[in-house]
């Protein structure tokens, strides 16, 4: 059974890159455009791992992660933060919100797959 990844990113470019990279690596990919939509599709998508951006309209990555962690079913799902925010403060906030790990953009397919494999069985 393919592993399912839910990606949440408002950038069409990054969404497409994620899609291509994840599909090529044999993952099933479900995509949402912001935190609100991410939470909306969470149940239906039923992912094994989540990759999310931080800066997004409507609901940012911090809020999204907190929302996922509040969901009984997904409170321990691995969540990777994909963002260009590289300063320690933002990373700290993401961790406090409950992020499992992070991938620093620029987008690098190898790094992404490595990180996903690191947090999934």
């Amino acid at each position: 059974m393919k592993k399912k990844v839910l990606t949440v990113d408002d950038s069409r470019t990054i969404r497409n890159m994620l899609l291509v990279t994840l599909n090529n690596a044999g993952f099933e990919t479900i995509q949402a455009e912001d935190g609100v939509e991410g939470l909306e599709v969470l149940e239906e998508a039923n992912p094994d791992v989540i990759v999310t951006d931080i800066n997004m309209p409507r609901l940012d990555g911090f809020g999204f992660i907190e929302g996922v962690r509040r969901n009984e079913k997904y409170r321990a799902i691995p969540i990777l933060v994909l963002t260009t925010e590289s300063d320690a403060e933002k990373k700290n906030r993401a961790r406090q919100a409950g992020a499992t790990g992070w991938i620093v953009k620029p987008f690098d397919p190898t790094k992404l797959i490595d990180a996903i494999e690191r947090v999934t069985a």
Partner: protein
Amino acid sequence: MDMNEIKEIFFQECEEQLAELESGLLRLNDGDRDPETVNAVFRAVHSIKGGAGAFGLDDLVSFAHVFETTLDCVRSNKLEPTAEVLKVMLKSADVLADLTNVARDGGSVDQARSKQLIRELEALANGEAPPPAAVVEAPAAKPAAAAPAPVVNDEGFVPVAFSFDDFGGEEDVLIVHPTYEISFKPKADLYSKGNEATLLLRDLSRLGEMSIHCNMEALPSLEQMDPESAYFSWKISVKTDKGEDAIRSVFEFAEWDCDLEISLADEGTAAEMTDEELPMQPVPFDLSVLDDEPDAPVGVVEEEERLAAVHESAATVAAAEVASNVVQLASTASRAAAEPKAAAPAAAAAQNTAQAASAAAPTIRVDLDRVDRLINLVGELVINQAMLSQSVIENDNNGTSSINMGLEELQQLTREIQDSVMAIRAQPVKPVFQRMARTVREIADITGKSVRLITEGENTEVDKTVIDKLAEPLTHMIRNAVDHGLEMPEKRVALGKNPEGTVRLTAKHRSGRIVIELADDGQGINREKVRQKAIDNDLIAADANLSDEEIDNLIFHAGFSTADKVSDLSGRGVGMDVVKRSIQALGGRINISSKPGHGSVFTMSLPLTLAVLDGMVVTVAGQTLVVPLTAIVETLQPEASAIHSFGASQRLISIRNSFCPLVDVGRILNFRSTQANPVEGVALLVESEGGGQRALMVDAIQGQRQVVIKSLEANYTHVPGIAAATILGDGRVALILDVDAVVSASRGQPLKLETSLAAAG
């Protein structure tokens, strides 16, 4: 999808983000202090930077980074978005747009300008006033995000080249991998954030030969146990040539939520860890429980003796079993719930995914070619329906009412399909309007005028083909309005006006057309000056009696320019005549109304699409022709008394006491060799380039109808005097007249291939 396609998407997205950025900055400029506006602006730059980084567009990344840093200051209220600050930001948005274009299309940007803006942005971020233009060149900050290194730790830890020599010392002959001792004690938080000790151990095992000892000292009794807490700790020794950095990177996500110690073991000690070193009975930890890849390297060293020793203690064994369960619990707490669903039929899962995907994509992007093909097919459907109606009428005079009703319904449906299909290609004029904001800024900068652009109705939709051709004439008109229309600030103050001039750009739908208005509150048309210039240029007679409106419209004459000095804006040899011609080429009309001292209003009316055209179907020398309705001012039935011969072959028709040249369309198009008798035909009063009127003689008017425009060039070449073709209800091709070309020909310029192609899609 390959990288090139994604890159194309990236540039499309950049355009959207740039538009978002600009409109956000303009809203801030208008005093909007909604944090979401600032966030949206920040996100736009941030997104561009993110995508640019992925494609290695370093110039774009560098600039976006500096821009983003300054925007972040605004976002965190460290920097007040004053008019001065926003001016720098709007200019930066323009540079960002330039850099994006260069990244896509090649070419070069104004380096000095972008460097200057980088300095200004940095100064703002540092809480300084923007520096003046000439400043010592500071190297542009290179953002960390642009660094090409494959693994960059943000704590400033960079992978270092690792050499065996560092560890091998003098023992060059025998290479011994160093052994690391790792003490790893997770906190409960580690699990709650989705990390798993077992996965970390798995990753460690991939670094080299490993032995693991699990410490269960902290494990409480079963009743007291919180299954989600963390009770275990591990002592691990790994023999690896990958270095401490590799070990640390395994714990990259977990290091805040665990106690971690890594040390280089003395040679040989790690492998022979004795019981004395361990506080309690350690339990060997078998990683194979989570081994879903049979051949994955699992470096667990099991010592039979130790295992036996463990088995000696019943309590320990029981604990081990519990431990194994706890590990499972902790590691799969989240997944337990998901398990039954995972076993559900694949179809259901696929359906879920499909639904999730559709929820994620309320719009689809379609190739323009496909839409065009659909539009063509619908065009054919319209023609076919018209043909069918015609043949039913011709062949069955007393057609039953059911056939007639069916035909009517078909006609209604066809219309609706046509409208719906046209709507697919309709786009808001917003992007074009936004480009005008930049034009205004640039001209305001050059002319030293202070200008405020107000746009209204930017969501008004019009066919994409029209939008694409709208930008150029509009740009020129805006330039004109700022350059010629608005006064200098000092003069405006002297006149009691706001020193800041206003240019208002509005779009709206009116009776099946789009009307675009461009109004300025400047000085208006100086009619005396225009009139004098027209007389000087022999456009009008010195004693001509012209209405104010007629004088205003003289500015659309070729080569007409009222600016006293030719500025670098309008000195390009492009006058309002070119604007008028390009609007007319779109099947549109343009008018000006002006109020001296209060400004001018240009009104353009354009068709909503270039795929269909409202035309008057006429007969000329036995041929059926279509004349674009937009060109026709009125139709006349000439009376013999109104026709006056003039010279050898010219004839004039008097219309309300003015004389208008008569043009025999059949003669001009060579459809007949002798001039037709005007009294037997119909005159179409048309307005052409430069506002000159002509009466086009045709034999008869068949009626008005909407026609689908077909290109002649697709299978042939341009035909002089003909704009395009269409197919009428009888299935025959009819030609659409190029009114401007015909009028030019009547002035003695023979029809030739270069003639403009009015109304051809």
